[in-house]
């Protein structure tokens, strides 16, 4: 009991001098969240970095952006997992530039992408918080997740999460402020 009292007093006095620092339990919580996300998905920091680079490559065809500041994070709220991508956009490229960038890539790819080109060029926001395309998220998981028993694997591949924490801009048409794809598709009559 005596120990307890002294320990508490000691903690109090210490606490007085380090109020500006993060509490150690918050550090622990944050570190754990990151490490558990990696454990559960088998996404190593190396793979995440690779994913980041590929996304930069893809997106820089359409937008001029701060490549170094692009942030890619996996986040979890309750049962669902979300991939968060934050890109500081410097400016949107005009049509010519986009055509040029696309011409450099192989023909197969450009066919798929051209449909989106016009829609994207109209976009002029400075800082978009957007979700990376579902395909990329799922493909990466398929590659890395051969361990079928791994926890939460089923949950996330079954339902790719769509979450837009700050600015909400529709991933499909890039004009409406929706976080729900279904409604957007209705609007566009797809």
């Amino acid at each position: 009991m005596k120990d307890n009292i002294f320990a508490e007093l000691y903690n109090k006095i210490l606490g007085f001098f380090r109020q500006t620092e993060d509490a150690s339990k918050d550090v622990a919580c944050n570190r754990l969240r990151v490490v558990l996300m990696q454990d559960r998905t088998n996404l190593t920091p190396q793979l995440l970095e690779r994913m980041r680079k590929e996304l930069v490559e893809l997106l820089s065809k359409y937008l001029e952006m701060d490549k170094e500041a692009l942030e890619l994070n996996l986040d979890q709220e309750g049962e669902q997992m979300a991939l968060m991508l934050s890109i500081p956009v410097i400016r949107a490229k005009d049509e010519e530039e986009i055509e040029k960038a696309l011409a450099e890539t192989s023909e197969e790819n450009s066919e798929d992408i051209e449909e989106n080109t016009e829609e994207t060029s109209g976009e002029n926001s400075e800082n978009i918080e957007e979700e990376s395309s579902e395909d990329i998220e799922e493909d990466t998981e398929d590659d890395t997740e051969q361990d079928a028993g791994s926890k939460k694997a089923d949950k996330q591949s079954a339902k790719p999460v769509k979450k837009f924490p700050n600015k909400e801009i529709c991933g499909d048409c890039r004009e409406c402020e929706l976080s729900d794809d279904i409604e957007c598709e209705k609007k566009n009559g797809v």
Partner: protein
Amino acid sequence: MSGRVIVITSGKGGVGKTTASANIGTALAKAGNKVVLIDTDLGLRNLDLLLGLENRIVYTIVDVVEERCKLKQALVKDKKNPNLCLLAAAQTRDKSAVTQEQLKDICEKLKKDYDFILVDCPAGIEQGFQNAIAGATEAIVVTTPEMSAVRDADRIIGLLEAKEEIESYRLLLNRVRPNLIKSKDMMSVEDVVEILSADLIGIIPEDTGIITSTNKGEPIVNDEKSLAGRAYMNVARRIMGEDIDFMNLEEETSVVAKVKKFFKGLMGKEK
């Protein structure tokens, strides 16, 4: 009668699986249930020590499997509680001496005569763990509010979820230190529950009484004054289906709380 088979597991070693097994088993028996504790930690048996039964063991689980004795002969009755008995692990053999099928078979047989079969699982996620969960339909995952224990618990939960036979699992948070949580130097109960997104079955405070009770070979639930003992009793009652509130550990540390109040009074204008 068809008893419930509950495995007590954790992944990480040293978080209190065996202590939890001994105490929950004793508590369930005290409440009038017929209980068998199975120690599956072959080569590193300790459950007998915590129950103070180390001198009474004649046959072990390996003797049962290799048919040197009948199952009933290998069950050692507890000193105090005739409702409780132990099926000890062999100290001289390794994990391969018993297979998953054999353990499943033993659990099936015991189900007929007992209300609860508690399986004390070895640390790790290898064969010993797979054996221990083979016969179980429920699991208690023991963890502490430390990073390594929580991470290992998450791994274990993943493995339990992948196993069809396990219908439910719940979290037992052990060695909780309310004063450290208050000073934000330890993850709180809520933090751990949120990170693991699992249901709680109990919160056990850190208690020096655990050490002395282990020294004596007597589970701490037998000491009704002890905080950890009462917490384990509550766990047993929750297993039996009763709805019991979790203890407020801060209020429970009565002497400390009083002294603290006294100090707070003295230094009242500190904030």
